[in-house]
């Protein structure tokens, strides 16, 4: 497996659009050729080598290429966009839209990520070890079609609209979420180990959501069906007692999604 190491050296005062940083794009290129790739910074295009030192050549294919970003790149956006194979390791934090519409391969972010990680993702694994902000695996603004496949794991917290419009794949949030988690969800799985604020699973018409912590304001359109213990979805396990709801019945489509809520953390329900 060939490894390309990018070390941030440039001026990132204006954010950089780095959708060119993918194993697909680096495969078959030498370190020099990779440095020649053009990327946008605000209205101007510049060579990748103006922002990063490049060490190592790409592999023969995307699958055979690992990209390591050796540092913090919070103002670099779209890393791994549309990637189909291979691996990207970001040793620090990263900017918005990491792993946008990715279809395969693996991205590991050791720090935090800004909003929109894994937007409309189709496949592969996106693992963020720190926190992130809004729109994890969500549909683009205005669109109601979010993530369709793959897996996103956030070890820390996320904020609003996690998995908006998700129809396939899994999102696992180790910490807490804010509002509109799983809005218009129609398939797939969202597991939130911590707490949620409000409008959780609002307008859901399919799929499964699990909240292990407390939901501050429960959505009104759900009906309780049963109590279940120790949930298991393939390799994802959720220990404890859960109330099982279906919904969201507050919309004309009378959706049939499933929402599991921790019994011990939501006794008031």
């Amino acid at each position, binding site marked *: 497996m060939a490894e390309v190491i990018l070390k941030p050296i440039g001026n990132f005062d204006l954010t950089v659009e780095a959708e060119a940083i993918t194993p697909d794009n680096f495969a078959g290129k030498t370190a020099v050729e990779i440095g020649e790739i053009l990327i946008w910074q605000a209205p101007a295009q510049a060579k990748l080598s103006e922002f990063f030192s490049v060490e190592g050549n790409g592999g023969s294919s995307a699958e055979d290429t690992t990209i390591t970003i050796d540092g913090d790149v919070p103002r670099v956006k779209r890393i791994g966009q549309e990637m189909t194979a291979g691996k990207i390791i970001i040793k620090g934090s990263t900017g918005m839209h990491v792993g946008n519409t990715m279809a395969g391969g693996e991205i590991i972010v050791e720090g935090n990520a800004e909003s929109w990680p894994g937007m409309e993702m189709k496949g592969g694994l996106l693992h963020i070890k720190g926190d992130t902000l809004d729109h994890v695996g969500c*549909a*683009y*603004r*205005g*669109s*109601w079609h979010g993530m369709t496949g793959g897996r996103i794991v956030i070890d820390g917290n996320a904020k609003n609209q996690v998995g908006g419009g998700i129809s396939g794949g899994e999102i696992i949030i180790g910490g807490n979420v804010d509002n509109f988690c799983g809005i218009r969800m129609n398939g797939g799985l969202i597991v939130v180990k911590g707490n949620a604020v409000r409008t959780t699973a609002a307008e859901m*018409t399919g799929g499964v959501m699990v909240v292990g912590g407390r939901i501050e304001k429960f959505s009104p359109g759900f009906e309780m069906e049963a109590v279940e213990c120790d949930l298991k979805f393939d390799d994802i396990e959720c220990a404890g007692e859960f109330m099982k709801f279906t919904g969201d019945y507050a*919309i*004309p*489509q009378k959706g049939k999604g499933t929402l599991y809520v921790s019994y011990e953390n939501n006794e008031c329900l």
Partner: protein
Amino acid sequence: MAGTIAIKNGYVYDPLNEVDGEVMDIFIKNGKVVTELSAAEMKDAKEIDAKGKTVMPGGVDSHSHVAGAKVNTGRMMRPEDHYKYYQKKTPIAHSGCGYTVPSVYLGGYEYSKMGYTTVFEAAVPPMEARHTHEEMRSIPMLDMAGYLVLGNNWFLMRYLKEGDIDKAAAYVSWMMKTHKTYGIKCVNPAGVENWGWGENVSALDEANIHFEVTPEDIIKGLAEINEQLGIPMPMHLHANNLGHPGCWEITRDSLKIPKSIKAKPNTDVEWAETKMKAQRHQSVYLTHCQFNAFGGTSWRDFESGVKGITDYVNSNDHVVMDSGCVPFGDATVMTGDGPAIHDLYQLTGNKWSNTDVECECGSGVLPFTYLKSNPIHSVQWAMGLETLLYVKDAWKSIMTTDSPNGGPFTKYPQIIAWLMSNKARQDTFEECHKWASDRSGLASETREMSLSEIAIVTRANAARTTGLAHSKGTLAVGADGDVAVYDIDAKKIDVNDYESIIRGFQNASYTIKGGEVITQDGEILAIPEKNTFYSDIAIKADSEKEMLKDVKSWFKYYTIGFNNYPTPDKYLANPTPIKVNAER
């Protein structure tokens, strides 16, 4: 010399002038078609070699939603429609984006690339006329005009209830001038007013709330007023119950209402020397027939009801209609029919918007995707093509998608391919839901339109129907020098190779406007001057005075002042009044 050009040796299709694919030269001098250019003029003229290519008058779209409040609502609602579909700026062209609801600049360029040179905005609510004109002014490449939405107007409904046709006519003529609009649009007559109370109307003789007028009263009244005033185009009708299974019947019955009204367009214009009579003879122009032709009684027994309408159209000569084809894929449904949008929201759960335009009309917008896997959508695809193929005389029909309701106008080349090629249709049957063949008659229809028929349904008849055939939709001497040259060899064309038809109509080899080449092979070469047409209808001074007294006293129901109501000339690009003479 500006606007002077010779287009040589193309296969010319000019149905209004009875030219059917003959190899001819077309000469344009100072923006107008002429018989020939002198040797001296030829020296300065631009010359285009159209050998092996198809030459038609510039395309005319007589029903498209491209400008105004509802289109803009569609843009604002749909960022997802924009970010993947965009065009960069060039030294002369603006950047733009939007697939089903393009930004104003992009919309103009995309029409022009397909060889279209004239487009009518299908629905201008009076209060939104200013906004509509502001957008039309910014749409490049196209001559334009807009239809004024009058089918649920409080003042008109009051006059019609009182039976005061003269005052109603005075009001319409004043409104056309005031809002710089071109023709009468009638959307779900009496029903949109009821929608303000959460109701609709479902029968032609059902009186609406408060005003107590029926759809029949309004259709009859507006059609009469239209001909009394001599408006260039027939009353333009979007019938009641649109989008409901079984609605084809009320549509057919609506078409019967103006049967005895004689068309009397009375415009004071210079007529190009066409061989055919270029004036309309119809008293009603039905829009987007497909949406008004649903059969069955529910979504379960849904089927095409097109034949019920086309049978009527084939045996009567007072009706012309456009198709409202559904080419599959993304669309944005937008209409003055607010309740129809609410029905669609309940069906789909999609995001939606609804507006009540005070004292005048309403509207709604909803994003929609037509899927080949969906049984209803597949039938709608077949129905759109049925509306064109079942009408025996192409002069009774016009090809549209009711853009962007059935799909964006950029899909026109695909629709032309389906009309010209049975193989194209059969191949689509293979891909779409079997209801398309089970619930419509299209699968056994073998008609394949000729290039001449395509020229009729995409320009000649749109121009004749709208009353602009004195200068548009033909290449007769005296017509505007608007020409489309397509890379289609009329003598070698193989309709089984329908992809080549799509390619040919997608990017015209040349689009010529007023004798100037403005696009070539999909590239924008020049931004021409554009005209905005409206009907300037003469009316007796005292009937106008009497009517205005009423309008001023009723104006208290508006939230804006009377003086701020009219659209000033400066909102129009080259305001071009069409003189309409009510005296005879």
